[in-house]
């Protein structure tokens, strides 16, 4: 542009942040919640009892169930329960004509009995996880849009670093209670403080969907035969071809121990069985993703399903795949124990706050010129979208949890209704933001969110037998932790609502005095 390089980058930073900020806020908040996906699911399906882990018994139960219900499927997937996920999950893909994709069916089993678990229908934490990269859109558009948002975030981070030249000096100058300037200081501090995390989480999301959004090099090297690429990158996905002759599948349980001998101190995460009813069946035993940071999709020990013969052990990943796998593993955080999971959660909130403060600054700076408080249309639009995308979303998350406890257990498509409640609440948040003056809308929505979150433990106690006293007495830290985290979030939101209410009075009295010094910094932002 006509000004210097840094000014141009500041301009780009500002406008990318505004246009994608609302979407990015939703992606980062739901993605952050997804770090507690299994814990959220446990709270939302409390009927699922936690059993002592016994992989052998789980696999035997799963095999019996699949033999009975999905004998003619083309593939079985068995995911073993672990410390975070108490259910034994079985999934199968129906046999399909060549070139077509068979349908997937998933069931949750009790790992001890091998029976289907009778629990309330709920999308659980999986909803946040899916939403944060699929955005409730048809495949593959949600993933493409989410990846585009990630690219914008990446550019936003780099241009932010370029804009902000005195990055470490400024970091130590936080000026609280200075209105607009405090927001800017907060934006800078939260940006610099966990900058490696922002960069990692953003670049890794590009890498996760790179073959979807940037397939040119696959096509250049493999032509139409892109399947070969995926087989070379993920060797274990190469499935044996069925012969058409019926075969007898060996018991799966002994293969767990056999596979483990190929890994030093590794656990089994899941098994797949290809063509289980065919004489040419194969069993792939995959290592638990939580075993190490770098994720390796394709690593498996494979056996012939009818003879038990060892077919192969996937070799170590080559370096480029190991780098990609490390980014994937770091993004997902499967390896993280309770402490690191909390670190991930807090860092994720920091990224969300980075986006939120940016949106607030954009508007705050421009609203200052309209001292009488009446905003022109475009600023009012930004204000409404800010409110709906931030406090409205937080209310919707709380409503999602409330729906889980309040919707009748026998309701048809209950899990879908949870999700619908979420979007209805979000839509009402937008409507409310349109109808109410800016600051009042903020205060009311934050206040409502505070109330809904703080009352979650009470709601849980009134609607289920898994209340706080009970879960604490039983040492069910996941259940208790969820209740307590909601309570804590409620208190934080109440504080935010109170601050917003109070600063409303302060702004009205000192707006004129403040407008002058801010404009000095304005050209850079």
């Amino acid at each position, binding site marked *: 542009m006509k000004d210097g390089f840094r000014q141009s980058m500041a301009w*780009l930073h500002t406008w990318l942040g505004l246009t994608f900020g609302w979407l990015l806020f939703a992606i980062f908040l739901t993605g952050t919640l997804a770090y507690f996906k299994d814990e959220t699911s446990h709270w939302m399906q409390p009927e699922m009892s936690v059993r002592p882990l016994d992989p052998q018994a789980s696999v035997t139960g799963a095999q019996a169930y699949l033999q009975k219900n999905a004998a003619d499927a083309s593939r079985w997937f068995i995911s073993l329960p672990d410390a975070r996920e108490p259910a034994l999950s079985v999934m199968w893909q129906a046999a399909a004509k060549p070139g077509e994709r068979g349908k997937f069916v998933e069931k949750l089993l009790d790992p001890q009995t091998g029976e289907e678990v009778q629990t309330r229908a709920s999308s659980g934490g999986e909803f946040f996880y899916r939403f944060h990269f699929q955005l409730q859109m048809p495949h593959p558009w949600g993933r493409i849009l989410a990846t585009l948002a990630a690219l914008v975030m990446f*550019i936003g981070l780099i241009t932010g670093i370029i804009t902000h030249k005195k990055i470490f000096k400024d970091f130590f100058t936080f000026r609280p209670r200075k209105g607009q300037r405090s927001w800017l200081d907060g934006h800078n501090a939260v940006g610099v403080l966990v900058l490696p995390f922002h960069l990692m989480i953003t*670049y890794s999301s590009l890498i996760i969907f790179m073959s979807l959004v940037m397939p040119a*090099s696959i096509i*250049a*090297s493999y032509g139409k035969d892109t399947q070969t690429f995926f087989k070379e990158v993920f060797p274990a996905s190469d499935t044996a071809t069925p012969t058409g002759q019926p075969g007898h599948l060996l018991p799966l349980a002994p293969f767990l121990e056999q596979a483990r001998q190929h890994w030093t101190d590794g656990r089994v995460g899941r098994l797949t069985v290809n063509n289980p009813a065919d004489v040419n069946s194969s069993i792939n035993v995959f290592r638990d993703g939580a075993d190490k940071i770098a994720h390796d999709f394709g690593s498996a020990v494979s056996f012939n399903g009818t003879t038990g013969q060892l077919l192969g052990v996937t070799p170590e990943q080559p370096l480029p795949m190991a780098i990609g796998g490390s980014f994937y593993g770091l993004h997902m955080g499967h390896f993280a124990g309770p402490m690191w999971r909390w670190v991930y959660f807090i860092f994720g909130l920091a990224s969300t706050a980075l986006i939120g403060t940016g949106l607030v600054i954009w508007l705050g700076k*421009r609203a200052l010129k309209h001292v009488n408080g009446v905003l022109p249309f475009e600023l009012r639009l930004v204000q409404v979208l800010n409110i709906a995308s931030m406090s409205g979303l937080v209310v919707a998350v709380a409503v999602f949890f409330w729906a889980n406890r309040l919707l009748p257990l026998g309701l048809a498509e209950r899990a879908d209704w949870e999700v619908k409640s979420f979007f209805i609440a979000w839509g009402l948040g937008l409507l409310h933001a349109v109808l109410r003056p800016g600051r009042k809308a903020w205060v009311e929505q934050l206040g409502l969110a505070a109330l809904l979150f703080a009352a979650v433990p009470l709601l849980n106690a009134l609607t289920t037998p898994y209340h706080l006293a009970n879960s604490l007495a039983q040492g069910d830290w996941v259940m208790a932790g969820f209740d307590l985290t909601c309570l804590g979030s409620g208190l934080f939101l109440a504080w935010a609502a109170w601050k917003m209410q109070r600063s409303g009075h302060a702004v009205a009295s000192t707006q004129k005095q403040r407008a002058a010094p801010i404009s000095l910094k304005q050209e850079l932002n």
Partner: protein
Amino acid sequence: MKSKRPSLPVSYRLAVTSRVLAAAGGGYLVAALASVCISLLSPMTRAEAVVSGMMLSFVFYLLAVIWCFACRTAWQAWGGLLGVSLVLGAIDGVAYWMAH
């Protein structure tokens, strides 16, 4: 910049639109061509080279977008991307022809 917006001439807005299109479309082209270049020329197995090319492509996208907004005029933004695309495309073409 933004403070003068109501009086901004149409030509300025068109120039910004032009830069945005150059950054989004031209940037993608540069990134894709660069990823093909890496995948065809780096001394690794086919799959490794393709994965490397895809992983690095986003850095080229970033640089292309920064270029589009850092240079003096929108014409320059297009010209630069076009030049880089032609060079990368030529390298890709030769490498593809040699590999097949």
